[in-house]
Protein backbone atom coordinates (compact mmCIF):
# COMPACT_ATOMS: atom_id res chain seq x y z
CA UNK A 1 0.00 0.00 0.00
CA UNK A 2 1.52 3.32 -0.95
CA UNK A 3 0.19 6.43 0.69
CA UNK A 4 0.82 9.65 -1.09
CA UNK A 5 1.61 12.75 0.91
CA UNK A 6 -0.92 15.49 0.24
CA UNK A 7 -0.49 19.19 0.99
CA UNK A 8 -3.34 21.41 2.13
CA UNK A 9 -2.95 25.12 1.56
CA UNK A 10 -5.68 26.91 3.42
CA UNK A 11 -6.91 30.48 3.40
CA UNK A 12 -5.74 32.36 6.49
CA UNK A 13 -8.24 35.11 5.87
CA UNK A 14 -9.41 37.54 8.51
CA UNK A 15 -12.13 39.29 6.59
CA UNK A 16 -15.03 36.89 6.70
CA UNK A 17 -16.35 33.66 8.20
CA UNK A 18 -15.20 31.65 5.17
CA UNK A 19 -11.57 32.26 6.16
CA UNK A 20 -12.17 31.12 9.71
CA UNK A 21 -14.00 27.99 8.56
CA UNK A 22 -11.21 27.16 6.07
CA UNK A 23 -8.55 27.48 8.74
CA UNK A 24 -10.43 25.46 11.35
CA UNK A 25 -11.52 22.74 8.94
CA UNK A 26 -7.95 22.26 7.77
CA UNK A 27 -6.76 22.04 11.36
CA UNK A 28 -9.51 19.56 12.12
CA UNK A 29 -8.36 17.26 9.35
CA UNK A 30 -4.83 17.32 10.67
CA UNK A 31 -5.33 17.48 14.43
CA UNK A 32 -8.56 15.66 15.15
CA UNK A 33 -8.97 13.36 12.19
CA UNK A 34 -5.18 12.90 12.31
CA UNK A 35 -4.37 12.57 8.68
CA UNK A 36 -0.74 11.84 9.33
CA UNK A 37 0.22 11.85 5.69
CA UNK A 38 -1.30 15.27 5.15
CA UNK A 39 0.78 18.40 5.49
CA UNK A 40 -0.47 21.96 6.00
CA UNK A 41 1.31 24.60 4.02
CA UNK A 42 1.39 28.06 5.55
CA UNK A 43 -0.22 30.46 3.07
CA UNK A 44 1.36 33.67 4.44
CA UNK A 45 4.78 32.00 4.29
CA UNK A 46 4.03 30.60 0.86
CA UNK A 47 3.13 34.08 -0.38
CA UNK A 48 6.17 35.63 1.28
CA UNK A 49 8.39 33.39 -0.83
CA UNK A 50 8.82 30.29 1.37
CA UNK A 51 10.82 27.95 -0.84
CA UNK A 52 10.04 24.80 1.14
CA UNK A 53 6.30 25.41 0.88
CA UNK A 54 6.46 26.22 -2.82
CA UNK A 55 8.64 23.24 -3.62
CA UNK A 56 6.40 20.90 -1.65
CA UNK A 57 3.42 22.03 -3.71
CA UNK A 58 5.41 21.47 -6.90
CA UNK A 59 6.38 17.92 -5.97
CA UNK A 60 3.36 16.64 -4.03
CA UNK A 61 -0.33 16.90 -4.85
CA UNK A 62 -1.75 19.93 -3.10
CA UNK A 63 -5.29 21.00 -2.32
CA UNK A 64 -6.30 24.61 -1.81
CA UNK A 65 -9.04 25.52 0.65
CA UNK A 66 -10.40 29.00 0.08
CA UNK A 67 -12.78 30.96 2.26
CA UNK A 68 -14.42 32.91 -0.53
CA UNK A 69 -14.45 33.24 -4.28
CA UNK A 70 -11.39 35.48 -4.26
CA UNK A 71 -9.58 32.11 -4.16
CA UNK A 72 -6.33 33.54 -2.75
CA UNK A 73 -4.95 30.08 -1.90
CA UNK A 74 -5.81 28.49 -5.23
CA UNK A 75 -4.54 31.37 -7.32
CA UNK A 76 -1.27 31.67 -5.46
CA UNK A 77 -0.63 27.92 -5.65
CA UNK A 78 -1.18 27.96 -9.38
CA UNK A 79 1.03 31.00 -9.71
CA UNK A 80 4.01 29.70 -7.74
CA UNK A 81 3.80 25.92 -7.91
CA UNK A 82 1.85 25.06 -11.03
CA UNK A 83 -1.22 22.90 -11.43
CA UNK A 84 -3.27 22.26 -8.33
CA UNK A 85 -4.62 18.79 -7.53
CA UNK A 86 -7.89 19.92 -6.02
CA UNK A 87 -9.62 23.04 -4.85
CA UNK A 88 -12.35 23.67 -2.31
CA UNK A 89 -14.23 26.94 -2.30
CA UNK A 90 -15.83 27.11 1.14
CA UNK A 91 -18.43 29.59 -0.10
CA UNK A 92 -19.77 26.83 -2.37
CA UNK A 93 -19.96 24.37 0.55
CA UNK A 94 -21.56 26.60 3.19
CA UNK A 95 -23.20 29.15 0.89
CA UNK A 96 -21.98 32.55 -0.17
CA UNK A 97 -23.97 34.42 2.45
CA UNK A 98 -22.40 32.44 5.27
CA UNK A 99 -18.91 32.60 3.86
CA UNK A 100 -19.04 36.34 3.43
CA UNK A 101 -20.38 36.98 6.93
CA UNK A 102 -18.10 39.66 8.31
CA UNK A 103 -19.76 39.82 11.74
CA UNK A 104 -18.69 36.38 12.88
CA UNK A 105 -15.06 35.68 12.12
CA UNK A 106 -13.59 34.84 15.50
CA UNK A 107 -13.42 31.38 17.01
CA UNK A 108 -15.08 32.48 20.22
CA UNK A 109 -18.17 33.72 18.37
CA UNK A 110 -18.79 30.45 16.58
CA UNK A 111 -22.09 28.72 17.28
CA UNK A 112 -23.20 25.13 16.71
CA UNK A 113 -24.25 25.88 13.17
CA UNK A 114 -20.72 27.14 12.41
CA UNK A 115 -19.13 24.08 13.99
CA UNK A 116 -21.28 22.00 11.65
CA UNK A 117 -19.94 24.01 8.74
CA UNK A 118 -16.40 23.20 9.87
CA UNK A 119 -17.31 19.49 9.92
CA UNK A 120 -18.84 19.80 6.48
CA UNK A 121 -15.74 21.45 4.99
CA UNK A 122 -13.42 19.02 6.80
CA UNK A 123 -15.45 16.22 5.19
CA UNK A 124 -14.90 17.78 1.78
CA UNK A 125 -11.17 17.99 2.42
CA UNK A 126 -11.07 14.33 3.49
CA UNK A 127 -13.03 13.34 0.37
CA UNK A 128 -10.59 15.21 -1.82
CA UNK A 129 -7.56 13.68 -0.12
CA UNK A 130 -9.19 10.28 -0.65
CA UNK A 131 -9.68 10.95 -4.33
CA UNK A 132 -6.00 11.82 -4.71
CA UNK A 133 -4.59 9.19 -2.38
CA UNK A 134 -7.22 6.43 -1.87
CA UNK A 135 -5.01 4.45 0.52
CA UNK A 136 -4.88 7.43 2.79
CA UNK A 137 -8.53 6.76 3.78
CA UNK A 138 -7.58 3.23 4.85
CA UNK A 139 -4.77 4.18 7.19
CA UNK A 140 -6.29 7.28 8.69
CA UNK A 141 -9.13 7.02 11.17
CA UNK A 142 -12.25 8.90 10.19
Amino acid at each position, binding site marked *: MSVLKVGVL*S*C*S*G*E*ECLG*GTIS*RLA*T*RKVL*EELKFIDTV*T*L*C*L*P*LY*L*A*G*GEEERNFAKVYPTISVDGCD*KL*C*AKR*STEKYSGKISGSIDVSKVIGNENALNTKIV*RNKDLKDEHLQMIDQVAGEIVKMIGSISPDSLNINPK
Partner: protein
Amino acid sequence: MLENHAILPCNGLDKNAGVISREIAIKLCENANNKIICPVYYRVAEGKYNKIAGEHSLLVIDGCQTRCASKLAAEKNLKVSRRVTISEEAKSHNIELKSNLRLLENENTLIEIILNGLNSPEDKVALSSDETTVFNKFDYETYQHGKFLFRVPANPEIYFNENDCWAYVIGTRARIGVTDFVQQNLSDILYFTPPEIGTEIDQFGEAGEIESSKSVFELVSPVSGKVISINEALIGKPELLNENPYELGWVAEIELTNFEDDKELLIGFDKYFEIMKKKVEDINV
Protein backbone atom coordinates in the same frame (compact mmCIF):
# COMPACT_ATOMS: atom_id res chain seq x y z
CA MET B 1 -4.09 50.62 25.94
CA LEU B 2 -2.88 50.28 22.39
CA GLU B 3 -5.12 52.48 20.21
CA ASN B 4 -5.37 53.59 16.60
CA HIS B 5 -3.03 50.98 15.25
CA ALA B 6 -3.17 48.90 12.11
CA ILE B 7 -2.11 45.41 13.11
CA LEU B 8 -0.40 43.10 10.65
CA PRO B 9 -0.08 39.60 12.11
CA CYS B 10 1.68 36.82 10.24
CA ASN B 11 -1.39 34.58 10.68
CA GLY B 12 0.70 31.51 9.99
CA LEU B 13 -1.13 28.21 10.06
CA ASP B 14 1.60 25.67 10.51
CA LYS B 15 3.23 26.83 13.76
CA ASN B 16 1.49 27.90 16.90
CA ALA B 17 3.54 31.13 16.95
CA GLY B 18 1.49 32.11 13.89
CA VAL B 19 -1.73 31.17 15.65
CA ILE B 20 -0.64 33.28 18.63
CA SER B 21 0.08 36.25 16.35
CA ARG B 22 -3.48 36.04 15.08
CA GLU B 23 -4.96 35.73 18.56
CA ILE B 24 -3.08 38.81 19.78
CA ALA B 25 -4.20 40.80 16.76
CA ILE B 26 -7.81 39.82 17.37
CA LYS B 27 -7.65 40.67 21.06
CA LEU B 28 -6.10 44.06 20.32
CA CYS B 29 -9.06 44.84 18.09
CA GLU B 30 -11.76 43.68 20.49
CA ASN B 31 -11.97 46.68 22.77
CA ALA B 32 -9.97 49.33 21.00
CA ASN B 33 -9.93 51.25 17.79
CA ASN B 34 -7.38 49.02 16.04
CA LYS B 35 -7.71 47.33 12.67
CA ILE B 36 -6.31 44.05 11.43
CA ILE B 37 -4.55 43.82 8.10
CA CYS B 38 -4.99 40.34 6.69
CA PRO B 39 -1.60 39.28 5.31
CA VAL B 40 -3.23 37.09 2.67
CA TYR B 41 -5.99 39.36 1.47
CA TYR B 42 -3.54 42.30 1.42
CA ARG B 43 -2.09 40.82 -1.72
CA VAL B 44 -5.51 40.99 -3.36
CA ALA B 45 -6.91 44.20 -1.86
CA GLU B 46 -3.86 46.39 -1.71
CA GLY B 47 -5.75 49.69 -1.89
CA LYS B 48 -7.93 48.92 1.08
CA TYR B 49 -5.07 47.98 3.37
CA ASN B 50 -2.73 50.69 2.14
CA LYS B 51 -5.37 53.14 3.28
CA ILE B 52 -5.64 51.52 6.72
CA ALA B 53 -1.85 51.38 7.07
CA GLY B 54 -1.55 54.98 5.97
CA GLU B 55 -4.06 56.22 8.49
CA HIS B 56 -2.76 54.30 11.51
CA SER B 57 0.50 53.50 13.23
CA LEU B 58 1.53 50.01 12.23
CA LEU B 59 2.17 47.12 14.61
CA VAL B 60 3.70 44.07 12.95
CA ILE B 61 3.39 40.71 14.72
CA ASP B 62 5.68 38.02 13.35
CA GLY B 63 5.31 34.46 14.53
CA CYS B 64 8.81 33.22 13.88
CA GLN B 65 12.16 34.33 12.55
CA THR B 66 10.99 33.91 8.98
CA ARG B 67 9.24 37.23 9.60
CA CYS B 68 6.64 36.92 6.85
CA ALA B 69 4.65 39.88 8.16
CA SER B 70 7.74 42.10 8.28
CA LYS B 71 8.65 41.05 4.77
CA LEU B 72 5.18 41.95 3.59
CA ALA B 73 5.40 45.35 5.30
CA ALA B 74 8.77 45.97 3.65
CA GLU B 75 7.42 44.86 0.28
CA LYS B 76 4.55 47.33 0.59
CA ASN B 77 6.85 50.11 1.84
CA LEU B 78 4.96 50.44 5.11
CA LYS B 79 6.50 52.28 8.02
CA VAL B 80 6.50 50.04 11.07
CA SER B 81 6.14 51.76 14.40
CA ARG B 82 6.03 48.65 16.57
CA ARG B 83 7.11 45.10 16.12
CA VAL B 84 6.74 41.87 18.08
CA THR B 85 8.16 38.45 17.23
CA ILE B 86 6.34 35.70 19.11
CA SER B 87 9.18 33.17 19.12
CA GLU B 88 11.57 35.78 20.56
CA GLU B 89 9.06 36.82 23.22
CA ALA B 90 8.57 33.17 24.18
CA LYS B 91 12.31 32.72 24.49
CA SER B 92 12.83 35.86 26.54
CA HIS B 93 10.09 34.79 28.96
CA ASN B 94 11.24 31.17 29.11
CA ILE B 95 7.95 29.91 27.75
CA GLU B 96 8.04 26.74 25.73
CA LEU B 97 5.63 26.66 22.81
CA LYS B 98 4.26 23.27 21.81
CA SER B 99 4.26 22.00 18.29
CA ASN B 100 0.50 21.69 17.98
CA LEU B 101 -1.69 24.61 17.04
CA ARG B 102 -3.82 24.79 20.17
CA LEU B 103 -3.68 27.67 22.56
CA LEU B 104 -3.00 25.93 25.86
CA GLU B 105 -1.73 27.29 29.17
CA ASN B 106 1.75 28.34 27.99
CA GLU B 107 0.42 29.96 24.86
CA ASN B 108 -2.26 31.87 26.76
CA THR B 109 0.27 33.03 29.34
CA LEU B 110 2.50 34.36 26.59
CA ILE B 111 -0.45 36.09 24.93
CA GLU B 112 -1.27 37.86 28.21
CA ILE B 113 2.35 38.94 28.73
CA ILE B 114 2.61 40.36 25.22
CA LEU B 115 -0.75 42.11 25.45
CA ASN B 116 0.22 43.65 28.78
CA GLY B 117 3.47 44.85 27.23
CA LEU B 118 1.74 46.35 24.22
CA ASN B 119 -0.96 47.98 26.29
CA SER B 120 1.46 49.39 28.83
CA PRO B 121 2.67 52.95 28.27
CA GLU B 122 6.13 51.89 29.41
CA ASP B 123 6.43 48.98 27.06
CA LYS B 124 9.74 48.45 25.38
CA VAL B 125 8.37 47.23 22.10
CA ALA B 126 7.57 50.65 20.80
CA LEU B 127 9.21 53.63 19.25
CA SER B 128 10.12 54.64 15.79
CA SER B 129 12.85 56.84 14.47
CA ASP B 130 12.70 60.58 14.66
CA GLU B 131 12.52 61.46 11.02
CA THR B 132 14.13 64.83 11.56
CA THR B 133 17.51 63.17 12.09
CA VAL B 134 19.10 62.81 8.67
CA PHE B 135 22.04 60.51 8.08
CA ASN B 136 22.69 61.23 4.45
CA LYS B 137 26.15 62.73 4.04
CA PHE B 138 28.90 60.28 3.13
CA ASP B 139 32.32 61.37 1.88
CA TYR B 140 34.02 58.17 0.80
CA GLU B 141 37.67 57.30 0.55
CA THR B 142 38.32 54.11 -1.37
CA TYR B 143 40.87 51.33 -1.37
CA GLN B 144 41.22 48.96 -4.29
CA HIS B 145 42.56 45.46 -3.81
CA GLY B 146 42.49 43.28 -6.89
CA LYS B 147 39.00 43.53 -8.28
CA PHE B 148 37.54 44.56 -4.93
CA LEU B 149 36.79 48.14 -4.00
CA PHE B 150 36.45 49.12 -0.35
CA ARG B 151 34.68 52.36 0.52
CA VAL B 152 35.02 53.95 3.93
CA PRO B 153 33.24 57.18 4.83
CA ALA B 154 35.66 59.81 6.11
CA ASN B 155 33.09 62.07 7.81
CA PRO B 156 34.21 63.08 11.32
CA GLU B 157 30.80 62.15 12.76
CA ILE B 158 31.21 58.52 11.67
CA TYR B 159 33.02 56.27 14.13
CA PHE B 160 34.21 52.68 13.79
CA ASN B 161 35.12 49.73 15.96
CA GLU B 162 37.69 47.15 15.03
CA ASN B 163 34.87 44.68 14.38
CA ASP B 164 34.21 46.50 11.10
CA CYS B 165 31.03 48.22 12.21
CA TRP B 166 30.30 51.93 12.01
CA ALA B 167 28.15 54.44 13.89
CA TYR B 168 27.03 57.71 12.32
CA VAL B 169 26.33 59.99 15.27
CA ILE B 170 24.10 63.06 15.17
CA GLY B 171 23.11 64.55 18.52
CA THR B 172 21.78 61.80 20.75
CA ARG B 173 21.16 59.35 17.90
CA ALA B 174 23.30 57.05 15.87
CA ARG B 175 22.74 54.98 12.81
CA ILE B 176 24.83 51.80 12.77
CA GLY B 177 25.90 49.30 10.17
CA VAL B 178 28.76 47.26 8.77
CA THR B 179 31.59 48.40 6.50
CA ASP B 180 32.44 47.40 2.97
CA PHE B 181 35.02 45.02 4.42
CA VAL B 182 32.23 42.89 5.92
CA GLN B 183 30.04 42.77 2.85
CA GLN B 184 32.97 42.00 0.52
CA ASN B 185 34.07 39.19 2.82
CA LEU B 186 30.61 37.70 3.17
CA SER B 187 29.96 37.95 -0.55
CA ASP B 188 26.28 37.53 -1.51
CA ILE B 189 24.22 38.34 1.58
CA LEU B 190 21.11 36.20 1.84
CA TYR B 191 19.56 36.90 5.24
CA PHE B 192 19.36 39.76 7.67
CA THR B 193 18.13 39.40 11.25
CA PRO B 194 17.60 42.83 12.76
CA PRO B 195 17.96 43.70 16.43
CA GLU B 196 14.62 43.98 18.18
CA ILE B 197 13.17 47.47 18.40
CA GLY B 198 13.16 48.63 22.01
CA THR B 199 16.13 46.48 23.03
CA GLU B 200 18.84 48.08 25.13
CA ILE B 201 22.21 47.26 23.60
CA ASP B 202 25.58 47.57 25.33
CA GLN B 203 28.58 48.91 23.49
CA PHE B 204 30.04 45.89 21.66
CA GLY B 205 26.79 44.01 22.20
CA GLU B 206 25.14 42.10 19.36
CA ALA B 207 22.94 44.21 17.10
CA GLY B 208 21.65 41.78 14.51
CA GLU B 209 23.00 39.12 12.19
CA ILE B 210 23.91 39.04 8.55
CA GLU B 211 24.24 35.75 6.75
CA SER B 212 25.65 34.82 3.39
CA SER B 213 26.31 31.45 1.83
CA LYS B 214 29.83 31.73 3.26
CA SER B 215 29.20 32.61 6.90
CA VAL B 216 27.22 34.49 9.51
CA PHE B 217 28.34 37.87 10.81
CA GLU B 218 27.14 39.23 14.14
CA LEU B 219 27.01 42.99 14.06
CA VAL B 220 28.89 44.36 17.09
CA SER B 221 27.32 47.64 18.06
CA PRO B 222 29.87 50.46 18.30
CA VAL B 223 27.55 52.36 20.66
CA SER B 224 25.29 51.66 23.61
CA GLY B 225 21.64 52.65 23.72
CA LYS B 226 18.12 51.68 22.77
CA VAL B 227 17.20 50.42 19.33
CA ILE B 228 14.58 52.82 18.03
CA SER B 229 14.27 51.67 14.46
CA ILE B 230 15.64 49.19 11.98
CA ASN B 231 16.13 49.27 8.25
CA GLU B 232 12.92 47.56 7.11
CA ALA B 233 14.14 47.38 3.53
CA LEU B 234 16.88 44.92 4.49
CA ILE B 235 14.37 42.33 5.64
CA GLY B 236 12.98 41.92 2.16
CA LYS B 237 16.20 42.83 0.33
CA PRO B 238 19.30 41.88 2.34
CA GLU B 239 21.32 42.27 -0.86
CA LEU B 240 21.16 46.04 -0.28
CA LEU B 241 24.00 45.43 2.15
CA ASN B 242 26.16 44.35 -0.77
CA GLU B 243 25.06 47.30 -2.80
CA ASN B 244 26.00 49.91 -0.21
CA PRO B 245 26.32 49.03 3.49
CA TYR B 246 26.38 52.68 4.56
CA GLU B 247 23.43 54.31 2.82
CA LEU B 248 20.97 51.67 1.58
CA GLY B 249 22.29 49.00 3.93
CA TRP B 250 22.29 50.71 7.32
CA VAL B 251 21.09 48.33 10.03
CA ALA B 252 19.53 50.19 12.95
CA GLU B 253 19.14 53.49 14.71
CA ILE B 254 20.06 53.83 18.35
CA GLU B 255 19.03 56.35 20.98
CA LEU B 256 22.40 56.88 22.62
CA THR B 257 22.74 56.49 26.37
CA ASN B 258 26.45 56.93 27.03
CA PHE B 259 28.19 58.13 23.93
CA GLU B 260 30.88 60.15 25.69
CA ASP B 261 32.20 56.96 27.29
CA ASP B 262 31.56 54.84 24.17
CA LYS B 263 33.64 57.25 22.10
CA GLU B 264 36.79 56.40 24.06
CA LEU B 265 36.74 52.88 22.64
CA LEU B 266 35.99 53.89 19.06
CA ILE B 267 38.26 54.96 16.24
CA GLY B 268 37.89 57.51 13.48
CA PHE B 269 38.35 57.18 9.74
CA ASP B 270 42.16 57.48 9.64
CA LYS B 271 42.82 54.64 12.02
CA TYR B 272 40.07 52.36 10.72
CA PHE B 273 41.15 52.86 7.11
CA GLU B 274 44.66 51.66 7.95
CA ILE B 275 43.36 48.70 9.98
CA MET B 276 41.01 47.69 7.20
CA LYS B 277 43.71 47.89 4.53
CA LYS B 278 45.93 45.64 6.60
CA LYS B 279 43.09 43.15 7.11
CA VAL B 280 42.37 43.09 3.39
CA GLU B 281 46.00 42.40 2.61
CA ASP B 282 46.31 39.76 5.33
CA ILE B 283 43.32 37.71 4.33
CA ASN B 284 43.62 38.44 0.63
CA VAL B 285 39.90 39.05 0.07
